[in-house]
């Protein structure tokens, strides 16, 4: 395959960036999207040009490091992560535009790399269950209804990649937040902090500069782990309950 790539290049957070066009030949459809970028980078270095910086690590769809807005879609045209996207999803001769996640809460570090530490701060604000090591009761002393445990698991599969924010026309991180609130809120262990958790996390979310949710639904469509929109409803419900209870 032969491709034309328009890639966002930006030297650092302060610099202004621009899309730069590259031609790449000899792309195999068995390559993953990131392997295609590896090939481009080898080619660029051969020409004495600095390689394109992009985030990636496990390359098996679970660590959440990889990102990329590929032709206007977070993680590209398939429901998966960029590292699991393969070139057979593209056609010979195609022009592909590759941009970083665009969100003021995720400032660009370099080229396609962004800083997602806002997510860590949202978790630190309340996305946990306070259980000091050693203080745990016997695991089976508190049964958790199977359906609730399954819902908790289904939404706990969030990989924190930020595709929801990238895809959201409002730049909101409600899906990310809702996934954590639903995960912990469905489990008996998560009940004591349920009220403070949602209030604190939402406050941190807003302070980070993420946009407000208007239930558009692009987030759930872009989520490589298919986290459903109902976690946002759950978030809202928990928030309403918490505020009513004076949190």
């Amino acid at each position, binding site marked *: 395959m032969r491709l034309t790539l328009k890639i966002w290049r930006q*030297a*650092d957070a302060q610099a202004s960036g621009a899309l730069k066009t590259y031609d790449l030949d000899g792309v195999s*459809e*068995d*390559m*993953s999207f*990131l*392997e295609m970028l590896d090939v481009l980078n080898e080619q660029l*270095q*051969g020409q*004495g*040009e*600095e*390689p394109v*910086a992009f985030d*990636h*690590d*496990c*390359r*098996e769809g*679970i*660590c*959440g*490091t990889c990102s990329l807005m590929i032709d206007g879609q977070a993680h590209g045209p398939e429901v*998966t992560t960029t590292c699991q996207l*393969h070139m*057979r999803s593209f056609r010979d001769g195609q022009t592909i535009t590759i941009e970083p996640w665009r969100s003021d809460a995720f400032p660009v*570090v*370099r080229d396609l*790399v962004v*800083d997602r530490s806002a997510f*860590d701060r949202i*978790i*630190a604000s309340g*996305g*946990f*269950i*306070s*259980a*000091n*090591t*050693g203080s*745990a*009761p*016997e*695991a*089976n002393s*508190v*049964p*958790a209804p*199977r359906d609730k*445990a*399954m819902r908790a*698991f289904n939404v*706990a*599969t969030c990989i*924190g990649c930020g595709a929801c924010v990238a895809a959201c026309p409002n730049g909101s991180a409600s899906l990310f937040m809702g996934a954590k609130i639903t*995960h912990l809120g469905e489990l008996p*262990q*998560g009940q004591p902090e349920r009220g403070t958790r949602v209030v604190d996390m939402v406050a941190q979310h807003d302070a980070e500069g993420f946009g407000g949710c208007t239930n558009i639904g692009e987030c759930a469509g872009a989520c490589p782990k298919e986290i459903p929109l109902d976690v946002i409803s759950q978030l809202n419900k928990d928030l309403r309950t918490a505020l009513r209870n004076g949190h």
Partner: protein
Amino acid sequence: MASNADVSGLTVLTQAPTQTSDDAHGYYTPGEPVGDTKAPAGLIAERWTKHKMDNRLVNPANRRKLDVIIVGTGLAGGAAAATLGEAGYNVKSFCYQDSPRRAHSIAAQGGINAAKNYKEDGDSTYRLFYDTVKGGDYRSRESNVYRLAEVSVNIIDQCVAQGVPFARDYGGLLDNRSFGGVQVSRTFYARGQTGQQLLIGAYQAMERQVAAGTVTAYTRHEMLELIVVDGKARGIIARDLVTGEIETHLADVVVLASGGYGNVFYLSTNAMGSNVTAAWRAHRKGAYMANPCYTQIHPTCIPVSGDHQSKLTLMSESLRNDGRIWVPKNAEDCDKDPRDIPEEDRDYYLERIYPAFGNLVPRDIASRAAKYVCDEGRGVGPMVGDFRRGVYLDFSAAIERLGRDGIEEKYDNLFDMYERITGENPYEVPMRIYPAVHYVMGGLWVDYDLQSNIDGLFVTGEANFSDHGANRLGASALMQGLADGYFVLPNTIRDYLADGPFDKIEESHPDVVAARTSVEERVQKFLSINGNRTVDSYHKELGHIMWEYCGMERSEDGLRKAIDMIRELKADFWTNVKVLGTADSLNQSLEKAGRVADFLELGELMCIDALNRRESCGGHFRAESQTDEGEALRHDDEFAYVAAWEFSGDNEAPVLHKEDLVYTAIEMKQRSYK
């Protein structure tokens, strides 16, 4: 498991080994035996309890004055940061990733073992201990393993309390499955994402401490040097990967939880960033590297599809429960559509060679068998290099037996993943699999307290060597990481810290300055060579050498050849590598250059270790040590020891220190799967 011997732990059941072979002669210098392992004696079931009592305490008021550096935020590092933060120590946590949540523990699929015996199927602490030592082919330290089995139950309690959504049965209680060929159901799991869920639990606990102010997280930071002052580890030199700034971080104690080094093979199931640098820098500062040649190669990975391949993806081992592994009997059939090859022309080689276990033989046996049939030219799939590297894993019989729905229910997500990567539908065409490097049992040497031979340097998780011997059982890596992080390290590190806070040292201390200068010089060196080859091309070549000669089967001649090739490659690297860009910005090529430089040194040591160990044990198979039937042959009389290697200078022969393995609670046996 029946045994006539007294297994209380009060009597030594083994004899000290005496090595008679010396394959690595000339490549190493013999050294003194390893000194104190601090492994307690007495009844095996009471050793950890007694040791915890003997370890000194740290006054809570003093804890905030004690600085602890933890490198790595996987299960071992993240759990330790959370726990030590909760205890009130002043923790600095480092990771190269953009968030602590991304450490590669996250990718573990299968589950985590714990001797809860919820199924009342005869499990116990002793049985988990027994299985782990046996699975490690009697090359681990028994006191450590027993402790691991003992704390396994606490891990599950802790994780459930944190909100880890383990699978549950209809009554709302925890579900278990049997995993990796063991006969009891002791594996707790969260679908195929157990590692992710456990890591997120540890990460959240750690972030809670970040908010509480006890833990400071330094993300996108890479440790590039260990600071040793007066024989004690006192800090690290790290590079801020965003700004490029070289930073000095001083502390009272340093913990390395930096994971394994499987990426020395270039292609592995590890994350792209997984590296040996933190451990290797410590090794160069005097920490022993133990059993570096012990590598686990996983038989069920998606095969290489071409030169562009950057990593290999593991497919859960559970697939072997229903899939049948075969290759064509005749090499000329290898490029045919497998569905057109009649039954009588297929060689179900595992079922043929191992009728008792069939497709469920242990990982190393299944891996080696696949290698042999491919070496014979009977591999399938695309040509990679000069032959095809793949065997079929065929579900057509299982689909006939269980129906497509039955298979879908069990393996749908795996089948989807396979199709996404290969573009082939495994419901219609047999899957292709090939072994890949997955885990390393070797690592920095530690004593019972998880302290290396450098005072104040502790090593946990995959980065240390201690618990898995020569091979690791399935669902035991997560167990070890969390055991170390939540329960072992916090109880052993306090004995060391009871002597602290240590004398303050300044950044101007000559040893600190020297460490920092060496890092700065190294960075400048990479940028100034300005040669013709990219870092990746060296990494690929090293990986190729390691895979060919220090992979599934190792031989004396091959290892010697590999050592020569690696030395040549290393020399070329330092004169001809090309690293573009600057030191003061995000520069991924520069990061890789440092990692590959360390892999080159490690690769050589792995080959020397493999050359010295003229026996086959666990993940290490020496062609010269096999039975008449081609099975692995251990030599306990010669090699029942831990090989702890000391660095003695660039291009100098390393020094071999031996720690004899003493068993008091388990008898050594030769395994057989025929």
